[in-house]
């Protein structure tokens, strides 16, 4: 049975190549997208931390996005 699944009557090379190329592309794009997202989150969180205490407090109170990014960044470090 395993031999049938691997060779697929001679079509295995074409079928497995198609699935492998699709899987590989999906994995590469996923990790590249995640890396870019993490990079922006990190830069944004650092820029917020560099603000003066007063400005930072006002920003975190007014912007949900900023507060979420900072809290998730703090969890990762």
């Amino acid at each position: 049975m395993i031999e049938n699944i691997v060779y697929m009557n001679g079509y295995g090379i074409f079928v497995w190549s198609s699935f492998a190329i699709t899987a590989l592309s999906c994995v590469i794009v996923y990790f590249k997208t995640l890396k870019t997202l993490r990079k922006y989150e990190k830069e944004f969180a650092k820029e917020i931390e560099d603000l003066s205490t007063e400005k930072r407090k006002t920003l975190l109170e007014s912007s949900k996005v900023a507060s979420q990014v900072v809290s998730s960044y703090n969890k990762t470090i």
Partner: protein
Amino acid sequence: MLKFFTNSNIFFWIEKLTNFINSIFFVLLLVAISFAIIFSPPDYLQGDSVRIMYVHVPAAWIGLASFTLIALISILNFIFKIKNLMLVSKSIAPIGLMFTCLAIVTGSLWGQPTWGTFWAWDARITSMLVLAIFYLLFIFVHKFISGEEKANKISNMIAIIGFINIPIIKYSVEWWNTLHQPASVKILGSNTIHSSMLVPLLLMFFVLILYCALIFLMKYKTEIIRIKKKNLKRL
């Protein structure tokens, strides 16, 4: 109602949706691949090479649907000039390009055992290649043209012009003599594909749609942070 569509609310829901998709994705992927590779029967003419269909067809559907969505958003954006819509189309374009390329490559791998060639300048294949070029143009405009408004205008025009190609791809198998067979799965009208093949095909499509949603949400989130980062500099 409009308050719901603020970046803060969208950002909150992106987190929730991403976690939900992550929790069900691998189980569904395993089920879909098992059906596609093991449980679905070989075709009476094409044998096991028909299994390529389970990645080729969903990839082509996603490539076409993504560009259609981008074009519709571009039309809406021309009329209403909603900034969030542009973020949506910018986030969809790379996913659409990837799946269009995958449809071309897997189609080529299917062509060799079925037609005896990896490539032919056939109407369907050529029009898919044209679609990939339109995707590239759309992405390059945002990458290389400085000035967001100018880039948005040009990319909107590219999307609307490229939209002409969508019905050409869809009906190319009927308008010209091509190597491609006519569509077996129809939204309107009865399908000419057996349920033992239709189920794995729809399962694979659903799993790839979930993957697209995951990438889209991450890209959209990145775009929101990029805008907030820009605004931070003005403080």
